[in-house]
């Protein structure tokens, strides 16, 4: 058996089997995560349909420019993450390190843009429980902003976890605790999670910013 691969846990008969199990485990986890966001999407979609006017008024208050910039930043981070997986497979450590750090920086940039958005919206009174009075008359517009804050918040938390994971991989590459291409699977799994968080945003962005605009 190959010595390069990590020791196989006793419940497995072969390293390949363990890899497959780890991969499937992550996919199942992501399916579960999708349902977590699914509930919020479900609510947002229904309100777009039954309160179009209020949703139009509410959506139009969002800053489309920062929204688009944020989306672009996140999409770019997907690319760097994909490059990291490729570099890991081919065992090119330095290159992997560079794109991983790039991914972390892009992730942080997205979080910064989002926090800026939140403060901006707060100043306009769009955070209904606190701050300046809420500017829109329709009750459903408030509901929209409640869902907006909870869904972008939930997404930001997931992204923060992703940033920590990617930073962790980069750190163990840097300190040589992690060898490539032997541990490609770790980079792949973190990459899969990162892409998932991105995809959530790719659905969240139109649902929040575009549909009723």
């Amino acid at each position, binding site marked *: 058996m190959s010595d390069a691969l990590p020791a196989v*846990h*006793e*419940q*497995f*008969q072969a390293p390949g*089997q363990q890899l*497959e*199990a780890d991969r*499937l*485990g992550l996919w*199942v*986890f992501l*399916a*579960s*995560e999708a*349902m*977590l*966001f*699914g*509930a*919020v999407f*479900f*609510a947002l979609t229904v309100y777009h349909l039954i309160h179009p006017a209020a949703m139009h008024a509410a959506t139009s208050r969002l800053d489309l420019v920062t929204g688009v910039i944020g989306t672009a930043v996140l999409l770019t981070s997907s690319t760097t993450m994909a490059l990291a997986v490729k570099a890991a497979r081919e065992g090119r450590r330095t290159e992997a390190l560079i794109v991983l750090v790039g991914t972390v920086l892009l992730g942080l940039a997205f979080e910064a843009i989002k926090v800026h958005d939140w403060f901006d919206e707060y100043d306009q009174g769009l955070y*209904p*429980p*606190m701050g300046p009075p809420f500017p829109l008359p329709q*009750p*459903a*517009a*408030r*509901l929209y902003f*409640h*869902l907006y*804050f*909870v869904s972008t918040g*939930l997404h930001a938390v997931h992204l923060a976890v992703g940033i920590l994971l990617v930073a962790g991989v980069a750190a163990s590459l840097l300190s040589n605790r992690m060898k490539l291409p032997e541990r490609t699977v770790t980079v792949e799994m973190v990459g899969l999670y990162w892409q998932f968080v991105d995809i959530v945003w790719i659905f969240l962005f139109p649902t929040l910013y575009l549909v009723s605009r």
Partner: protein
Amino acid sequence: MTAEAKKAPPKSYIEDGHTLRSWFFSTDHKGIAVLYLVSITLFFFVGGAAATLIRLELLSPNGFILSNDAYNRLFTIHGVIMVWFFLIPSIPNTFGNFLIPIMIGAKDLAFPKLNLASWWIFVFAGCFVIAALLIGGVDTGWTFYAPFSTMFSNGYVIPAVVGVFISGFSTILTGLNFIVTVHRLRAPGMTWFRLPLFVWSIYATSLVMVLATPVLATTLLLIFAERVFGLGFFDPQLGGDPVLYQHMFWFYSHPAVYIMVLPAFAVMSELMTAFSKKHIFGYKVIAFSSLAIAGLGFLVWGHHMFVAGESVYVGLVFSVLSFTIAVPSAIKVFNWTATMRKGYVSFDAPMLFALGFIGLFVIGGLTGLFVAATGLDVHLTRTYFVIAHFHFIMVGGTVSCYFGALHFWWPKMTGRMYPEMPGRIVALLIFFGFMLTFMPQFILGWLGMPRRYHLYPPEFQVLNVLSSAGASILAVAYTAPLFYLAWSLFYGKRAGLNPWGAAGLEWMIPSPPPRENFETVPVVTWEAYPYPLEPQPVAKEDGR
């Protein structure tokens, strides 16, 4: 094989270590199953104590021991503990944990550490919730309906909700572990259609666990955000929509009722074949109907909301879909009964539990159709009829199967036989005690007695007293196994490999099984339930 095992008996998982550490931190799936068994038994008795007080209070029409508030808190404790800390983990986390790796010929689950972690998460969540419910007193009912739970109810809703949220992780991780295990760890030759139906049904359950529980997590998160940050999702004063809560809650909770009952189906297939000594009737149909139930279960949540401002057309769609979901359940019942036909049926305690299940589940399922009919439901909803309906399924059905499984696999888990006579008596007591407790509740509901009140018109007293009398029988019947099973641990007859003469990999290894389950990885060359078993002397005389 038997002779070999006699020569050098491998150390069983129980003898593997004697320290507390070896139990609480062992990643062995069998040890974790035992941990779950002990902890959910404790939760069962907490929930049961609340039920006892509820039935005691209902002996009298004008409430003689409890205040309104105390009564509300009691049925909340009862519901929350029974649903999330007994029924949902009951069969999957104990018997699923113990049996799935063995049934598929593996040494353990795919992620043993995750398995241990989910037990710790579960126990932590359980203690947290019990503390919240006992110290604070939550009066929302297990459904946590908003805006009551977010606006009016006292502050302990938050810790209760947080506890249930945490327990969700345990459910999701367990489901994930089972799914990956069944996909990736099957022994050579163990194809999907050679899997015991137990595995199929737990697999279907796991899908629901993984896909429905996160929706509960979101729902609870929104309650939390509404109460703590004032973000109004459900409270109309803040722009929220109370019906949204019901949609989200039932989108989880209807599938969740299948998390509770699919594992009972899993046990049924094993019991009916083992005690009829016959191949299951319609293997594939049963396997696929489990998946059908898991899928359809996501499409019927609206039948809990016929009177919640849902449009008539939506109501009709949900009604029709609810009728459809009864079909795969009914198919299973027909298959189990057909399995007995021309079999060598014996009536040991586990089989009595299984037959009891059929009787009670059929009543529960049929009354499900009553409440799924939109017109009828307007009259029946929020009455004792609904209470009786779901208790017939979840308690009559699932809890009976849980006890059936406990008796059936007890010799495998402990190496000792339970005493047969008390087992049979308890099986009968549970059936008849159950009937006496819940049949009157159908009538009460039909006559219009609402649920969740402890005061009622005096003309309902007779039926309520009957119900409480039944409950006292149930209390005895549910407690008795605690004693005779404990007794059997020390004085029970030693069980050999296969005390029931049943088929399945779990009956080919020592009782209790060694830590590694199998000395060598088994190679499976036979279909599931290959009855009559080869060495069995059945059908010897006339070759029928």
